[in-house]
């Protein structure tokens, strides 16, 4: 910067500073006076002044000290050094952090056999005030009377006199090695109600213990709740700072005129208005914390509760707890907890969870839980949306063949078919005669020929393709990037399959591939309108190539079973595509989808929810870039659904359906999410509408049929399953579901026949598994074992299959094989449990495995926990009957069976389960069955 510029800059600053405090007219006058015809100078200052207000607003959007907060650098240096002796009794081990009141240290209590404690300093104004210290001592003495596993123990209040002679008050309490609920929520986001409930239960236990002892918390909030890992499967929740509310001047706390301190967001209205803390205000705070636990934010009044999508029993409980009037508010902490766990009359426990614990597995219901999703490349322009008479044609684009045998070329060919499906799907809203079968559905069912596409997926038209090097006589032929795609269209719904002659599309380097190919296919199908490509959002050819190849790896990594190596290749391609074009929304979405699958692949072994955060970020970015593409919203929802955050997924799925009623994975997942959040009526409505809109869709019928089946409405379920079979007779999911229905209605021969037919078409492990169980229920154990052995050979990772095989070996008395299979099944169940420690069905399943292997103590402990975690779950009740029976507790087993029957557990398992053979000869069982009414 030379001197002249420097002088000029200095003048600009001076004039700016002088004019800034003035009003607009004054600023103009000041500029006129000072600039004296130097327009350029005037312009420079005026521009700065004009933008100053907006600038301040812009900078105000960042929280104060945001970078310091970001890095956690908000505290000063700790007062005590490591090794310092405090109050002649405590030796400082280390500085733990700075809290609202003061600093927290880990210290060693030299009087008490060197027990380690947390030492908390108090603010200077307290330390200097002997009355305040006395009052605090009285309050702590009261708080000390509360002895409860969920209440942090408080030891002593004392003073330390530093070398400067200034007293510093401190108190000591139990040292907790864990993180606060606040930190947990910041780290992981809102928790599902299933995960949250055991935590809220422990909070309620702590507050109830205190209230019983006459102690009120007064500042209950997530920052005062610590989660301490105890066993690998469970956490101990500890509530801290009881009775300290009057003193806790945390930065996020406010004074309410001397009556006490609290934290807005958790403070009851009467407390905010100046009233002291009461039991009722603690109830309010507990409801507020419960709300934040499942939504991520504290409530502001009951209106916010109405606005969220949540389990109805939670909603009504929270509304009652957050009642502004302490007189009409839920009367006690205990009442609030009871309201939270109440099962609303509309919720049917059968439909709550399609869990792997069901002995007769409905895994095909689960296969599409991670739905075959498609990504779309470019927004489509054009199309007048005219309705077309006649029914829609289902089109399946089969994986293209690659002449080149390299994995990259195969991925490209497969990806081209998948992206072609995506792209053509975007026009089906405007051109409603065609409906495209998602690429993933083809892979999941192993469909690789046009006829099978018809039989297994109900396709009317199948498209096959082949990618070769372009012939050398074509323009650009023989060059490295040149390709020729040959496409054939097969009319497969006609009695005689008709094939149109193959058409060639020659591709040259530097040109986008997909618009050319999809236009050609659209012409061949006589689709209207053809596809226009929005030039400004289309990627470059190089980016497109990476994306298409990535899609190929993604499809290969998705089905028939998740393949991490393929998915990692997909990640690399999508990241490369994004690198090349950050505005390429489809690549963001596809990357997000890949992260979800990677999470699915590893969730049993690691709780790497970070992958889900990454998936969510990518999906949000895709939705931001292209807010009209339904599929991107589905991907976002998948990131939430993968770990059970149904409430979060619902708005995304609803948005997807609004954008495109045919969006793959939107309707079925939304129905499941409604069901999981106890909105069974809406779930049912969704699925019924799916059948009405697409009466020939086999998958719509299957989804609705499964819902009916899970409700015990076997007749209606059968109608839907038979419809499904009509449109997709060879689909393994259709076959499996129908066989499950036959088994559940005790038509074992029909089940066997259907499964044998399916196995002749596809050697699928689930079909083998279900066949094995159909045999077991008939007492044909040797056949059952043989069938489950096939299932286990094909599905080496599936813990349900492995447990079934172990049971089979036990029943045919092949002890050595049984032992090995049980070991595998138990370790798989333990992994599942460590990933999902409060899942009652997983707990129950593990308990059953332990009882089968003679570890009755462990079995009883776990089944107790399962029953406590989900007292209404009939599957857990039924499993508990098995556990009790195997531990020779006949009376308990009968009671559990009674309870399962009362809850609506289907009869077939009770009447035919091999582990209840002895029990069924008991006269009490005969009475019990005679009295049972299986009405549905």
């Amino acid at each position: 910067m030379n001197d002249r510029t420097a002088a000029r800059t200095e003048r600009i600053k001076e004039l700016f500073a002088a004019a800034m405090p003035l009003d607009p007219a004054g600023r103009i006058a000041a500029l006129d006076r000072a600039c004296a015809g130097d327009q350029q100078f005037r312009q420079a200052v005026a521009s700065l002044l004009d933008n100053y207000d907006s600038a301040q607003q812009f900078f105000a959007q960042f929280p104060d000290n945001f970078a310091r907060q970001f890095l956690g650098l908000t505290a000063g240096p700790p007062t005590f050094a490591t090794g310092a002796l405090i109050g002649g009794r405590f030796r400082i081990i280390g500085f733990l952090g700075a809290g609202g009141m003061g600093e927290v240290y880990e210290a060693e209590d030299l009087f008490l056999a060197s027990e380690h404690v947390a030492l908390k300093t108090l603010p200077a104004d307290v330390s200097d005030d002997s009355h305040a210290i006395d009052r605090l001592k009285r309050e702590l003495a009261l708080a000390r009377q509360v002895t409860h596993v969920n209440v942090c123990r408080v030891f002593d209040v004392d003073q330390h006199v530093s070398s400067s002679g200034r007293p510093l008050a401190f108190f000591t309490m139990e040292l907790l090695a864990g993180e606060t609920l606040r930190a947990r929520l910041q780290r992981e986001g809102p928790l599902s109600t299933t995960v949250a409930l055991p935590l809220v239960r422990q909070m309620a236990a702590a507050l109830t213990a205190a209230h019983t002892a006459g102690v009120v918390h007064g500042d209950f909030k997530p920052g005062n709740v610590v989660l301490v890992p105890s066993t690998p499967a469970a956490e101990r929740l500890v509530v801290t700072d009881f009775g300290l509310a009057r003193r806790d001047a945390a930065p996020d706390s406010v004074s309410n005129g001397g009556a006490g301190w609290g934290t807005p967001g958790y403070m009851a209205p009467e407390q905010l208005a100046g009233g002291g803390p009461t039991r009722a205000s603690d109830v309010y705070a507990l409801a507020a914390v419960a709300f934040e636990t499942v939504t991520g934010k504290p409530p502001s009044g009951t209106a916010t509760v109405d606005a969220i999508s949540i389990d109805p029993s939670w909603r009504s409980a929270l509304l009652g707890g957050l009642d502004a009037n302490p007189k009409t508010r839920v009367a006690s902490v205990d009442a609030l907890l009871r309201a939270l766990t109440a099962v609303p009359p509309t919720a049917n426990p059968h439909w709550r969870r399609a869990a792997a614990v069901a002995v007769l597995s409905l895994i095909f219901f689960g296969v599409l839980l991670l739905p075959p999703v498609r990504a779309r490349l470019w927004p489509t322009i054009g199309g007048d949306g005219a309705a077309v008479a006649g029914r829609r044609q289902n089109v399946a684009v089969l994986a293209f063949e690659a002449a080149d045998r390299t994995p990259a070329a195969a991925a490209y060919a497969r990806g081209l078919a998948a992206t072609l499906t995506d792209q053509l799907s975007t026009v089906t809203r405007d051109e409603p005669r065609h409906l495209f079968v998602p690429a993933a559905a083809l892979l999941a069912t192993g469909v690789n020929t046009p006829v099978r596409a018809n039989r297994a997926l109900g396709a009317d038209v199948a498209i096959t393709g082949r990618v070769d090097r372009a012939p050398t006589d074509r323009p650009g032929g023989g060059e490295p990037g040149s390709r020729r795609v040959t496409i054939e269209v097969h009319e497969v719904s006609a009695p005689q399959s008709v094939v149109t002659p193959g058409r060639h599309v020659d591709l040259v380097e530097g040109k986008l591939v997909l618009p050319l190919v999809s236009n050609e296919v659209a012409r061949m199908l006589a689709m209207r309108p053809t596809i226009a490509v929005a030039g400004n959002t289309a990627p470059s050819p190089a980016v497109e190539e990476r994306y298409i190849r990535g899609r190929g790896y993604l499809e290969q990594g998705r089905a028939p079973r998740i393949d991490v190596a393929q998915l990692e290749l997909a990640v690399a391609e999508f990241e490369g595509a994004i690198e090349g074009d950050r505005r390429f929304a489809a690549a963001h979405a596809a990357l997000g989808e890949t992260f979800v699958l990677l999470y699915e692949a590893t969730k049993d072994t690691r709780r790497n929810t970070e992958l889900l955060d990454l998936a969510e970020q990518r999906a949000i970015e895709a939705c931001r870039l292209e807010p009209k593409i339904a599929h991107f919203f589905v991907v976002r929802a998948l990131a939430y659904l993968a770990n059970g955050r149904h409430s979060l997924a619902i708005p995304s799925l609803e948005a997807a359906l609004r954008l495109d009623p045919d969006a793959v994975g939107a309707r079925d997942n939304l129905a499941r999410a409604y069901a999981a959040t106890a909105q069974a009526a809406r779930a049912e409505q969704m699925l019924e509408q799916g059948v009405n809109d697409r009466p020939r869709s086999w998958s719509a019928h299957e989804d609705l049929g499964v819902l009916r089946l899970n409700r015990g409405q076997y007749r209606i379920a059968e109608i839907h399953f038979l419809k499904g079979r009509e449109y997709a007779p060879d689909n393994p999911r259709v076959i499996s579901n129908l066989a499950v229905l036959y088994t559940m209605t005790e038509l074992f021969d029909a089940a066997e026949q259907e499964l044998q037919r399916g196995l002749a078409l596809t050697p699928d492990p689930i079909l083998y598994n279900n066949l094995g169980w159909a045999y077991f229920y008939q007492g044909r154990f040797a056949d059952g074992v043989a069938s489950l052995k096939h299932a286990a050979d094909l599905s080496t990772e599936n813990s349900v299959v492995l447990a079934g095989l172990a049971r089979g070996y036990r029943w045919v008395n092949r002890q050595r094989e049984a032992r090995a299979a049980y070991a595998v099944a138990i370790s798989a169940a333990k992994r599942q449990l460590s990933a999902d420690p409060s899942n009652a069905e997983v707990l129950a399943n593990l308990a059953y495995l332990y009882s089968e292997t003679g570890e009755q103590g462990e079995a009883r402990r776990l089944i107790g926990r399962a029953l406590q975690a989900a007292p209404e779950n009939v599957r857990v009740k039924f499993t508990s009957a098995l556990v009790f029976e195997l531990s020779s507790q006949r009376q308990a087993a009968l009671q559990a069976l009674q309870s399962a029957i009362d809850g609506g557990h289907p009869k077939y398992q009770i009447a035919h389960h091999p582990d209840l053979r002895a029990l069924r000869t008991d006269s009490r069982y005969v009475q019990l069955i005679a009295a049972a009414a299986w009405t549905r």
Partner: protein
Amino acid sequence: MDKSAGGDITGLLEQWRNGDRAVEARIVDAVYGELHQIAQRYARRERRGHSLQATALVNEAYVRLVARRSSWKNRAQFFGVAATLMRRILIDHARRSRAGKRGDGIAHVALDDELLDRAARANLSATNLDDVIAVDEALTRLAAVDGRQGRIVELRFFAGMTSKEIAEVLGIGERTVDREWAIAQAWLYVELRKRPEPPAA
């Protein structure tokens, strides 16, 4: 970073305080090293069942580097050094977060990615991150035009220091700091408005 390097930092900080601005980059690198080491230790500890908190991490670095060294007690001056560091960490994080990938070749970033992600999730949204990156870029241009103003923005925006603290660190009057901060905001905002707006979807 080993113990002797800790000693070096004290010396470097002393030099920096005495006006040798050339050592700043070395200090920043050293602090990075310390943060990295602590992050590793916490990461190992976490595997044994303890939980990791970014706050604890940086506090520990702060305590080790600053509070325990008698020759370096001034908290405000620590933030003077830390501002550059924080800006760098924050921007690296924001860039990677925006790019949706981890470890994209910003070689000097040694901090645990997960840690940064967590810290960022706690305090910053995705849109904010885009703005932070834009501010950073504009700030680089500002610093080229007016070094002192650039320094003030860095201390204020990235280190969250008060005018008083900034005045202390830079050895200028508090009112000058306020005036410079005001004009710098306006200047940066004008620069930010030159950003190409994403076309409406």
